[in-house]
């Protein structure tokens, strides 16, 4: 279970904060990574990802709260060989396992663009598992932003006011069998709950999206277990393979078990868009 594991790693992440800079030279030296490698992958060998996925990150987190990243697959999602899982790990965040994305052959491409919070200088990793169980890792080093940029959201009240509003759209012209790009936007504060109230000595209540599921014509194309390392107002860009019309449906669950859903009706040739409020 990811959530419980995240709680454990929060402690590890905080403890490693002080050493963050010393670890920048060699990604294998990261204490957090060694723990994640042991816990998630039982120390299984991981190959360099060059031929399987690439990871795009800025060299510096310009805005610590909104750092765009892209994971791009280098292999087609075939029936016989495809990427089934991609882990997104941010070593020096309080919760290093930012996301676990799951794909199917119906995804078309195992690509994902999203935005993350960067607390401090850190390695960011995308670890892809193909359906034969093999693991591949792409890793980038990202410098933290300057001292007046914080990972917390910019306007806490505004974020809560529109909580649960969603938008999904498909921009590509639809060609049956050809992967089409979709974008899902979720209005949500995605609060870590790590802010300490200095008067009451209590922590804020965490409130973040923990699960996203997208189906096309009833079949799953992208699932994600995520947490508060994903930026406020989580945003995901991913692919699915249309075969004519049908519906693209997204379901979102947060850690307080609030559920949100939105559906885009697609016709045979054009994309579409939909927005919905909290249900």
């Amino acid at each position, binding site marked *: 279970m990811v959530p419980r594991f995240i709680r454990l790693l929060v402690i590890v992440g905080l403890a490693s904060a002080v050493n963050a800079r010393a670890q920048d030279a060699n990604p294998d030296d990261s204490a957090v990574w060694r723990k994640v490698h042991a816990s998630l992958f039982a120390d299984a060998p991981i190959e360099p990802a060059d031929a399987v996925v690439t990871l795009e990150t800025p060299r510096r987190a310009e805005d610590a709260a909104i750092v765009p990243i892209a994971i791009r697959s280098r292999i087609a999602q075939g029936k016989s060989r495809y990427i089934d899982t991609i882990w997104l790990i941010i070593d020096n965040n309080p919760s290093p396992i930012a996301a676990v994305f799951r794909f199917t052959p119906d995804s078309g491409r195992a690509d994902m663009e999203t935005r993350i919070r960067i607390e401090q200088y850190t390695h960011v990793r995308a670890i892809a598992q193909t359906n034969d169980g093999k693991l591949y890792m792409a890793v980038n080093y990202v410098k933290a932003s300057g*001292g007046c940029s914080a990972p917390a959201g910019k306007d806490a009240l505004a974020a809560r006011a529109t909580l649960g509003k969603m938008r999904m759209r498909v921009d590509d012209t639809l060609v049956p069998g050809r992967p089409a790009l979709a974008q899902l936007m979720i209005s949500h504060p995605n609060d870590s709950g790590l802010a300490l109230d200095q*008067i009451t000595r209590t922590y804020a209540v965490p409130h973040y999206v923990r699960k996203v599921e997208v189906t096309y014509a009833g079949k799953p194309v992208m699932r994600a277990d995520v947490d508060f390392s994903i930026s406020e107002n989580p945003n995901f*860009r991913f692919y699915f393979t249309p075969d004519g019309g049908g519906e693209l449906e997204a379901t979102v669950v947060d850690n307080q078990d609030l559920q949100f859903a939105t559906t885009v009706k697609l016709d045979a040739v054009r994309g579409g868009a939909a927005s919905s409020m909290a249900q």
Partner: protein
Amino acid sequence: MLHPQRLDRERCVPQSRWRAAPRRRGILHVAVCAAIAWSATAAARPPELPAFALENPAPGVYVHYGQQAEMTRANAGDIANLGFIVGARCVAVIDTGGTYAVGHALRQAIRGITAVPVCYVINTHVHPDHVFGNAAFVDDRPDFIGHAHLADAMRRKGPNYLNALRRDLGDMADETRVVLPTRAVSTSDEIDLGGRTLSVRAWRTAHTDADVTVLDRSSRTLWLGDLVFVGHLPVVDGSLRGYLAVLAEIRTIDATVAIPGHGRAASWPGAVAAEERYLQGLLTDVRAAIKAKRTLAEAVETIGGERGDWLLFDAFHKRNVSAAYAELEWEE
């Protein structure tokens, strides 16, 4: 630039009608001045902190100009404009600097000017370069005054700011901590310093979600915090649309001199023109990128702007594009 050591004699002579009441000009006052004259040249400030210069643009109004830079050990975190206003009964401090040491230097400078007590410390917003000197004033037991959202913003962001400060400044960050506001301003508040009144106004989300301005009516000096940058590229850490809306409103405030959060004091409202132009351009360019279905990453890489016109453009422009994009992509 005025330099503390050179000014000790001048400062210890009452200069304005807002100067301390006559009884303060007696033995006590002389003793304080003597103590300050000694401390300013000896143990008062950590050796690494640059000379703490003050300017005096209006009677009883003192400004310290921070360097136009990101926080580094070279500037010791002294990068924001700070200052204070002296009334007959009270001093109000407006922003306290990027570290405890900067706040301490400001406090020493105040004691070099006047023995009137510091009753109020106003934080213009949450950013570390403006609030991390607060701890140096705790012994004065002032009201710490800020926007009604400031306490929440400090709680959410303070720990990260402290980590970044320790990372970037090392031991120069010693003794720096988060000191929360004790008096919240929801819309506006009047602060009586004795013989002069300050008007503190809270604004909707703009530069941050906790911006206040301070107007000294008697000198018509308007302290803007980081709602206005002069020279230094403006930074969007709240809402770009809110920023432009607030600027349109504050430019109608009746003031003569504007003291920005970064950069030199300027005439009002002329001080705001360059910033408005940059922010309006940012709004137009980011909206166009979203309409053209460019991604956030593509927008950050492709949207230029007035690179030659600003200091610290490379440090903050991409960040502004990111923030603006994340806000504007939700527009209908």
